[in-house]
């Protein structure tokens, strides 16, 4: 399976993500410019972290109009894998591919640290390499990761088991229900604030992100995604 990492103006975790995919799975990963519409070659698409369009107005608000988002939408409909990390999660929310929105962290500060995160679902194509309920350590780095959805939406997310990652220690940003990552109903689109691509080597303080890339690689093969 081939991986795409979309590069928006202002993305800054794009290369980290490409490297993590290559190093962990050995698969091919391409950096794909945001103006490219056709993403049909890719079985899995990453929307990386960063500050696309400076995060001006709202994080993800401008990036969601990028031409590559057509390809992302199509991939989501096809059942291919789409994952947004940090800014990528914000873009998926703005694009309506996942429900909810992001507010400023409740303490209003940017927060960068390694935090405990509980894997609530280990039966998704992104998390099959983890144990259900496993608490892993992942870096976060964001100023607007305070997840919001109205009561009805939130209740539905929980009922359907769409909350995949949840902060297991102190809630670092005020997210409702301590949400750190969610999937769509079909289970093939994931958005998460923590950065698995920064947790792939002992020297980086955690290796707990590796299983996510491995899970995706496996799912891609099983599902015979391009």
């Amino acid at each position: 399976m081939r991986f795409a990492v979309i590069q928006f103006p202002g993305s800054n975790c794009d290369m980290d993500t490409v490297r993590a995919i290559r190093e962990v799975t050995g698969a091919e990963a391409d950096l794909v410019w945001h103006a490219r519409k056709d993403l049909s070659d890719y079985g899995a698409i990453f929307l990386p972290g960063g500050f696309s369009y400076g995060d001006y107005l709202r994080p993800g608000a401008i990036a969601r109009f990028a031409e590559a988002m057509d390809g992302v939408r199509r991939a989501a409909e096809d059942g291919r894998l789409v994952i947004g990390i940090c800014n990528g999660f914000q873009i998926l929310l703005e694009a309506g591919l996942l429900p909810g929105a992001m507010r400023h962290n409740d303490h209003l500060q940017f927060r960068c640290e390694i935090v405990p995160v509980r894997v609530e679902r280990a039966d998704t194509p992104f998390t099959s390499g983890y144990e259900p309920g496993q608490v892993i350590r992942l870096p976060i780095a964001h100023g607007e990761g305070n997840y919001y959805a109205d009561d009805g939406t939130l209740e539905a997310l929980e009922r359907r088991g769409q909350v995949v990652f949840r902060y297991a220690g102190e809630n670092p940003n005020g997210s409702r229900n301590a949400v750190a990552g969610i999937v769509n109903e079909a289970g093939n689109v994931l958005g998460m604030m923590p950065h698995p691509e920064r947790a792939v080597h002992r020297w980086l303080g955690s290796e707990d992100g590796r299983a996510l890339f491995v899970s995706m690689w496996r799912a891609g093969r099983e599902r015979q995604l391009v």
Partner: protein
Amino acid sequence: MYNEPTAEQIEREALYRQVGMTEEEYRRAVELLGRRPNWLELGLFSVMWSEHCSYKSSRRVLKRFPTEGPQVLQGPGENAGVVDIGDGWAVAFKMESHNHPSAIEPYQGAATGVGGIIRDVFTMGARPVALLDSLRFGPPDDDRQRYLMREVVAGIAGYGNAVGIPTVGGEVKFAERYRNNPLVNAMCVGLMRHEDLARGTARGVGNPVLVVGARTGRDGIHGATFASAEDPLEKERSAVQVGDPFMEKLLLEACLELIATGAVVGIQDLGAAGLTSSGAEMASRAGSGLEIDTALVPRRETGMTPYEVMLSESQERMLVVMERGKESVAGEIFRKWGLEAAVIGRVTDDGMLRVLDGGKVVAEVPVKALVDEAPVYERPAREPEELAVFRSWRWEETPLPERLDEALLALLGSPDLADKEWVWRQYDHMVLASTAVRPGADAAVIWLRGTRKGVAVCTDGPGRYVRLNPLLGGMHAVAEAVRNLVCVGARPLAITDCLNFGNPEKPEVFYQFEQAVEGMSRACEVLGTPVVSGNVSFYNESKGVDVDPTPIVGAVGVVEDMERVCTPAWGPGMIVGLFGPAAPAPEDQGRWLGGSEYLLRVHHLLAGDAPPLDLELERKVQEACLEAIRRGLVAAAHDVSEGGLAVALAEMAIAGGTGAEADLGAVAAGVRPDVLWLGEAGSRIVVALRPEHVEAVRRLAEEAGAPFAVIGRTGGDRLVLRAGAVQADLPVERLRTVWKEAIPWALSENSRVSSSI
């Protein structure tokens, strides 16, 4: 055409004063030009001859710095220094101040400071991989200081995080003399292959000159505003420059892509004095001339005069000289990134900086006159009277506290020594996924991915020592920074610096400056770390009070094997060793107390001399410790600096979540317990060793001629300090709480929230 004074008027009415030139300087300009300068030409002289651009007060003194070594690929004189780290890799780095803008508007001042230093590094062809920030404020006991600190930190975070360069290190200190003059110094470190080294030169007659990036507005134009024929916004003008990290990120990517094409002849950021200074400097380095038509410069505002265009300090712009015929290469790359690239002139061979306005020549000044012929001052220097007063302190009269527990807690909770996590967790210190040693250790380590190598970086600036003894303080600044590199297992390579001082026209301030540079130079020579870049910030004064003399040193080293990186975190069951002197001779006790954090926090005294520092001993200690780490004999290491041995041990205990018992009974004869545990001296590193490695380390130290002593063992959950009798005994948890909570507590008072809401 513009409402500008004539050359005659300038002379008759002494208008040169309005742009900060003395009469003598004006006469010199007339002589060099062979005629009276017009208003624009006067503007060019005034900015190029300003302290900021010409280093007219410091140039003579800075010559003292050692700048050479086999590792140096580029020394001072370019936008950043560059050193070799082996295997074809090199590091580019530099530090710069943004003190004055930060005092006016802390968020934007700090943000644009970060932006400027990033450009200095990528302009060399290096990809920035780390930022550091060195900050000084007044004590956090008033709303203004807390506001400044919150905003400065937010500004650094807001810019660095968005550009996507991890801020991995720095320091924050507080002292009375920074109350009206906060210091904000930022350092950037970049990585590159040797062959990608780019330089700021304007070579090749006829080569096109481009301005790329943001448009030019009326930002930061100095003093007099006669020049504005029509400035519709005059009343609404703000001196504040706003940073745009998004633009910077695009500019960074576009410039690196452009440099990689090989079609770039020279490139330089537009910083202070904008087009004037960058144009003149690039021409000067190449010995060429430059022609710029201001009408071709893309503007953000209407009605700008050539004067305003030439002097604008709008952010996020670069000046690029391309190979002739390759303009379109730049055009394409910049268009892809959504940026503008405009050809605004060309390289000439007549040595002139010629400014045109729609084809018409409006200024013509020899580059040499602007750059090489800038005035150089021999400022008088005189030892400040306060030094004699400091030295007259009689340490014997300082009472001994009953127990050291309280003193140790007071030190751990002092804003200077307390945990700075509140600051650095606002910085994205992990982006680029290469940060192997994160903030909080002696130095940060950036892993050079795909290799086993790493780059270690840190900053240091012992302001109090420099105030007490500028020469010795300057030595400490370098020794301490370099020692910090050694503690993480890096071989020191070179340093950059930012010299923050008061008004150099005061002989006392100039004395501090001269002596500090001398001290730094000596340390650099002995420790083998040349100065490859730097910056001077003078006039940090207000209401007649100058800041403490504050040279900040940024040090860079290389880790050869990432498996051998060390941090201060120790584990249980280890032996605690100390490289360097364990105690002073009884007659030297005063030297260990003078200028110490302990004397200040517990006795509220700033007195004495800076602590002793023997550079040869320092070198031996560093060599021995580094060798021990490289052989894999050291489990944890931490240098002993402010707060002395007790604070160093406490920090290691907190970092490792493990207690220890240390006993200095063997060396304590005739020495006061406070001197022993809280006294300060250079050349000391605490290490934790597995028991089976102790003998090897001892032998190694002996061979290197470095003192080494076993002083205790780790384990349990208390830190116990004895010299025979117990002198302090505290739970590690208590130490941790005091150390961790001091800064958040100091800043939590319900005061002004940031206006950046």
